[in-house]
């Protein structure tokens, strides 16, 4: 298989191994030590680490900066880029800079609307002007242009090309479901090489969606990594089921967490079962793990799932 850029993640997938990615949220502050701390917890447990880009429109250390710190700590980043805050000029500029600093994987997202940043205890910036100059699919195409054509969106060239391993998101279960497979196809046609999905809890429905992707030949063209968020309580699952579009949690899972003697331990059990289930789905090439503000749980989970140590790539 042709190698686009030869990042660790790309090579892991090319070797046919089950890939593991994990999420690292940058701090709400300028201290690199916060990023280094998470790096030391997660070193060696995943093939690449997603660095979020002002997720939920909350100002955090920029994803390019936090990605660079991870890189310096020996971890390979997947730099997330959202379309909410930067126009195509700034995005392309950031991509060139990111490449110069050593970034090789990017994940292209639309990004939560800025109103999401104002909620709970946070004031956020709901009054900010939003950008959304391009959408996530156009962004994928822009990155592909920089990589394969050494060309900017507007037509001018760059020199040399900036090759990235391009990722995109997939939310197979939010309405309109009939379109979600078309949207996946559009992203892969535009140039996406790997796909990380919205958190999966309903294996049956997820499997159906993956089968459809397989039928369309999409699982051969891009590596699909289902997202798994470690559940900590029934309340958390209920909340996500009700409020996060695309997250569907079966009733009996919520009940199971509710009835558990220790929901935190049960949540880890659930996570391991989900990892095992998706590992056995045809067309699935890895898993994307998220433990929101609880990254310290991940090393043990990944070990218990039989995914450590990460195999050597020859």
């Amino acid at each position, binding site marked *: 298989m042709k190698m686009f850029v030869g990042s660790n993640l790309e090579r892991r997938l090319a070797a046919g191994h089950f890939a593991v990615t994990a999420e690292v949220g940058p701090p709400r502050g300028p201290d690199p030590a916060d990023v280094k701390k998470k790096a030391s917890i997660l070193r060696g447990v995943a093939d690449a680490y997603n660095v979020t880009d002002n997720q939920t429109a909350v100002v955090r250390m920029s994803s390019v900066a936090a990605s660079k710190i991870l890189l310096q700590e020996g971890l390979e980043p997947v730099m997330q880029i959202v379309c909410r805050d930067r126009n195509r000029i700034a995005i392309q500029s950031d991509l060139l800079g990111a490449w110069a600093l050593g970034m090789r994987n990017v994940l292209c997202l639309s990004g939560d609307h800025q109103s999401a940043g104002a909620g709970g205890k946070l004031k956020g910036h709901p009054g900010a002007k939003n950008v959304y100059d391009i959408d996530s699919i156009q962004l994928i195409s822009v990155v592909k242009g920089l990589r394969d054509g050494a060309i900017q969106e507007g037509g001018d060239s760059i020199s040399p090309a900036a090759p990235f391993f391009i990722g995109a998101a997939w939310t197979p279960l*939010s309405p*309109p479901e009939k379109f979600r497979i078309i949207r996946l196809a559009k992203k892969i046609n535009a140039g996406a090489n790997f796909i990380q999905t919205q958190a999966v809890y309903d294996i049956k429905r997820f499997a159906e969606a993956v089968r459809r992707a397989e039928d369309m030949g999409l699982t051969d063209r891009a590596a699909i990594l289902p997202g798994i968020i470690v559940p900590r309580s029934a309340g958390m699952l209920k909340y996500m089921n009700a409020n996060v579009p695309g997250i569907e949690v079966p009733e009996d899972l919520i009940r199971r967490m509710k009835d558990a003697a220790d929901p935190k331990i049960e949540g880890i059990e659930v996570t391991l079962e989900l990892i095992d289930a998706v590992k056995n789905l045809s067309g699935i090439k890895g898993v994307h793990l998220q433990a929101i503000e609880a990254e310290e749980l991940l090393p043990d989970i990944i070990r218990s799932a039989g995914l450590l140590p990460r195999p050597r790539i020859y």
Partner: protein
Amino acid sequence: MIFAEWKPLDELIDKLKTHKKVLLVGCATCVAECAAGGEKEVETLAPLLRMALKKRDHSVEIVTATLEKQCEWEFIEQLAHQVTEVDAIMSIACGIGVQALAERFDPITVYPGVNTSALTIREEAGLWATRCAACGDCILGETFGYCPVARCAKSLLNGPCGGTRKDGKCEVNGDVDCIWNLIVERADERGQLESLSEFKKAKDWSNSRHGGPKRVIREDLRQ
């Protein structure tokens, strides 16, 4: 229509209190259709402002007028005499009207009494919703009559993001339908779902406000 709403009354009082006699001017077109600046609203706002000013011991006389359109010089001219008798104007027309008055009646101060915020339709009594974003590059022919530029919070052009809720509403604002959900449903009803799999490239925003303020000349209509 161009949509506007009253500014907070405190803000209006604050501006008016330093004047002796103010002309409150409405417009019978767009702002009348959105119940913000028509004759009815002038007749509502005037007593309200007088009462508010009196309570705060400001003596400001307010006289009123409503023009057919505040964006036509011939109608604006009708105010010429009244304007000589006041020391400020407050317009509850859209920003176009406010500026037209400011230009014609310089040096008198013209205050806006409303915030102009959208291009809307009145869906039903008492309910206005955004329809158009004046993007200058209309794609309604490809989106089955629903505009994603104006009606998607992220102006997405290639389909919905992951934020379409189970009830078909948008995660950004639960009162609003996910417009892409509506586009997909309509495309499907017409057997044209496939047309939405076509890649829509990055939009050219330059024919809108993003390209800078417009100044358009039609030679065939010049005198």
